[in-house]
């Protein structure tokens, strides 16, 4: 395809948009961290090492990221293996169930889990009644709770990636190994795992960066000695104390490093383009005992993963849940309040509008870029692809921090005055990769000859786009848009940083604020969380139905 004027316009607009709202803020933060009064200095970069609290915070966050990644791998691998290789009754329903834990951001789950695992929570009360000693579940300062919440939320991302990767491994590769006498474990270790590892790494990096930089769950658990919370705390005296910039730079460097490492690992492995014969449909049927074990494993994991959801529902539905094992005095009062309470109702409206606008921006850029990437490959588009995928490697809290640092002196964009413009931009930049991926997948499965046939019959470019391309693509665009929208609604890190005025709080910040109020705050917050879960759940269900196994491609770093 020739590079026309519109292509150049698109390249220019994308570069300008991402240059201004992705590259510039990051550079700005970097400069602020190492340049003071016009002179480069290592003071603040080194200060991080000198300060024991900050050093420990960074280490803790890295550990949270690593533990969360490894644990979600341990959970997701057998699940994905079962779904990729076995056919059994209820498979489709259970496959959908695997994604359900994703519908609740970790910090909402914390609201409920506190009820169960706190010192006087349900579990310890149960132990006490049974005459057993109480256990400090969140011992070690609470890191365990954070890791558990992150894992329960993120293992579906890992699962989606591994299933997609396994589906690409031609069963004939494994059969060839079996034919030559290899045992199951050898086949997995020598053949299957190497072939699927690019997908595994692609999922792992998303999980790591997410867990490493999520401020939501630690804040809810009052686990303050970790990087995202410390970064959040420096915001108030940003202009006097550049230590915040140093934290951001470290967070960014670690994220980028992890990103490149995963890319490097993925490239080192042999990526085998699956032939047309490659199909995962040739699944085995498990024996009766195997079937029982499969059901037990799937339902067991899902039950544990849904525990936070259930507890949140308990908090949202009960008037009193204090010093008792189960919630009491059921009421729908808090759901009504969630829809009518000043802060709650306005935050829901604001989140829906901001996410909607951000999604429109994403659709425009995403469809155009997806088309460009699918239809014309060159060095320019390869470079642009890297740029567009960068938001996956840059944590939301880091990006938002960069926005505050870069734009607080521009009246039009100053988040302290009006946070809406930057929130919309931040949401759209953060979710752009998902939209581009979805559109790209759509264009790829759309044979170019469909468009050529229309040109050949005399249609002009606009007609082809309107009558052929868009109708054939609409499912993918819809799926990408739904995901971009629903994840923007529950965007935590950047929302906490950017929303300064209470009348401008989106859902995430309103939930955070409400959860700190002593009386009915947590109950209303939980009710809001449940409403959000329903929204996100429905979105994922629709998107999953449309995209099928290609869903996994949206949640990977390459």
């Amino acid at each position, binding site marked *: 395809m020739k590079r026309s004027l519109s292509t150049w316009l698109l390249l220019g607009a994308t570069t300008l948009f991402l240059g201004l709202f992705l590259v510039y803020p990051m550079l700005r933060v970097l400069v602020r961290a190492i340049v003071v009064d016009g002179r480069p200095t290592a003071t603040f970069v080194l200060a991080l090492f000198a300060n024991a609290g900050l050093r420990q915070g960074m280490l803790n966050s890295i550990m949270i990221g690593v533990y969360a990644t490894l644990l979600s791998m341990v959970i997701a691998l057998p699940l994905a293996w079962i779904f990729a290789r076995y056919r059994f009754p209820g498979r489709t329903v259970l496959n959908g169930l695997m994604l359900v834990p994703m519908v609740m951001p970790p910090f909402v789950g914390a609201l409920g889990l506190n009820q169960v695992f706190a010192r006087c929570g349900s579990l310890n009360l149960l132990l006490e009644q049974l005459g057993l000693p109480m256990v400090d579940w969140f011992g070690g300062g609470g890191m365990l709770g954070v890791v558990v919440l992150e894992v329960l939320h993120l293992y579906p991302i890992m699962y989606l990636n591994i299933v997609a990767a396994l589906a690409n491994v031609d069963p004939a590769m494994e059969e060839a190994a079996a034919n030559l006498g290899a045992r199951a474990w050898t086949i997995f270790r020598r053949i299957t795992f190497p072939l699927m590892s690019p997908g595994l790494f692609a999922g792992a990096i998303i999980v790591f960066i997410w867990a490493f930089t999520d401020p939501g769950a630690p804040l809810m658990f009052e686990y303050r000695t970790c990087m995202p919370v410390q970064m959040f705390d420096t915001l108030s005296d940003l202009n006097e104390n550049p230590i915040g910039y140093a934290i951001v730079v470290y967070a960014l460097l670690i994220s980028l490093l992890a990103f490149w490492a995963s890319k490097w690992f993925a490239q080192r492995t042999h990526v085998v383009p699956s032939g047309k014969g490659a199909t995962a449909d040739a699944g085995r049927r498990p024996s009766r005992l195997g079937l029982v074990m499969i059901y037990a494993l799937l339902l067991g994991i899902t039950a544990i993963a849904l525990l936070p959801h259930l507890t949140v529902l308990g908090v949202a539905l009960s008037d009193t849940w204090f010093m008792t094992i189960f919630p009491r005095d059921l009421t729908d009062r808090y759901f009504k309040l969630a829809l009518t309470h000043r802060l709650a109702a306005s935050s829901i409206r604001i989140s829906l509008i901001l996410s909607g606008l951000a999604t429109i921006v994403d659709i425009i850029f995403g469809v155009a870029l997806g088309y460009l990437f699918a239809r014309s490959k060159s060095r320019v588009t390869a470079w642009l692809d890297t740029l567009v995928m960068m938001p996956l490697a840059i944590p939301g809290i880091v990006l938002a921090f960069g926005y505050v640092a870069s734009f607080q002196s521009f009246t039009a964009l100053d988040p302290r005055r009006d946070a809406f413009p930057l929130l919309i931009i931040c949401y759209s930049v953060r979710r752009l990769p998902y939209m581009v991926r979805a559109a790209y997948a759509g264009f790829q499965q759309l044979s170019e000859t469909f468009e050529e046939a229309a040109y*050949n019959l005399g249609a*002009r470019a606009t007609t082809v786009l309107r009558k052929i391309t868009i109708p054939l693509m609409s499912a993918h665009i819809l799926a990408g848009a739904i995901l971009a929208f629903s994840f923007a609604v529950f965007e935590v890190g950047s929302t906490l940083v950017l929303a300064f005025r209470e009348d401008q709080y989106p859902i995430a910040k309103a939930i955070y604020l409400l959860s700190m109020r002593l009386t009915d705050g947590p109950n209303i917050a939980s009710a809001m969380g449940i409403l959000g879960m329903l929204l996100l759940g429905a979105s994922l269900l629709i998107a999953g139905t449309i995209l099928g196994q290609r869903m996994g491609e949206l949640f990977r770093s390459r």
Partner: protein
Amino acid sequence: MVGVRLTNISKSYGTTQVVRDISLVISPGELFFLLGPSGCGKTTLLRMLAGFLEPTTGAIYFDDRAMRRVPPNARNTGMVFQNYALWPHLTVAANVAFGLEVRHVRAADRRARVTRALALVHMDAYANRFPHQLSGGQQQRVALARALVIEPDVVLLDEPLSNLDAGLRIEMRKEIQRIHAELGVTMIYVTHDQKEALSLATRMAVLHDGRLVQVGTPVEMYQNPATLFVATFVGETNVLPSTVTSADARAYVLATPCGTVHLPRTRAAQPFATGDRVALSIRPEGFAFATDAPAVNTWSARVVESTYLGEIVQAVCAVGDTLVRVTALNTAGPPPRPGDSCSLVINAAHCRIISFAAKEIK
């Protein structure tokens, strides 16, 4: 109905040349074939005619109109794609109507023409189906109707039958021939299947490595191949490396590994001199089994393999150490059996003397 003229067309991607200096004139109303193995540049050539690719050098004319920089949607060609490219979200009728819609044909008129086009390919009963509800052969017919309904100046067919099974392919060949005869429209047909080309083409061009090797009617291509490539690609043949032992005004004498052959000069693709190394192509049907053989152009042979097929017999015979394929009409007597001694009589009309060096003719 237009004529198509290509002058010195080349197409390069970076340093790889996929089409090299092709000039060609296709008359109005021809069913013209571009024949060649995969990778020979025939599809690239067709896509340049459709306007999806611009030639690197050279020009394309539809009648006297130069097509340079004329976009695909302004060329009025009707293309049938290899995978049909029927739009899955539109019904059969809507697929066929598309080209008329973008030409702003009035609705009543449009309906009538769609019905007529579908009737032409015997698909009028399927107007409201969606493509995925049709079989491969039916999709093929709809794709043809969609290309024809706009009354194109040229119909371009890109390996249209390659996705069909053998039986359907023969049926669709006849359909295309019938439609071409009925409409008289210029058709350019790309294929790697020489039988398709031989059975349908008014004329054909053989392409090899991006070059045009030979142009002619199917009979010319089969009987008078200009190069060894054409001789072996179009139809089956026996190739015997030979030497010219005598050349006079009317005939050549060749020494072949099987024996001596006398051929009239008209059987040579180009003039040769005594001592030249040449390739002799003898079609399998150029041999006949004989009992009372004339002395000239007759070799003694032994039957190695024999397949009886009713009206013909296909045999492999050994002449000395050289094996040749023979296809002979069955006479009343018993067919040859393996091990039989026999005499092979060569029919000069099925022979062709070709230079080893001739890769192409300009």
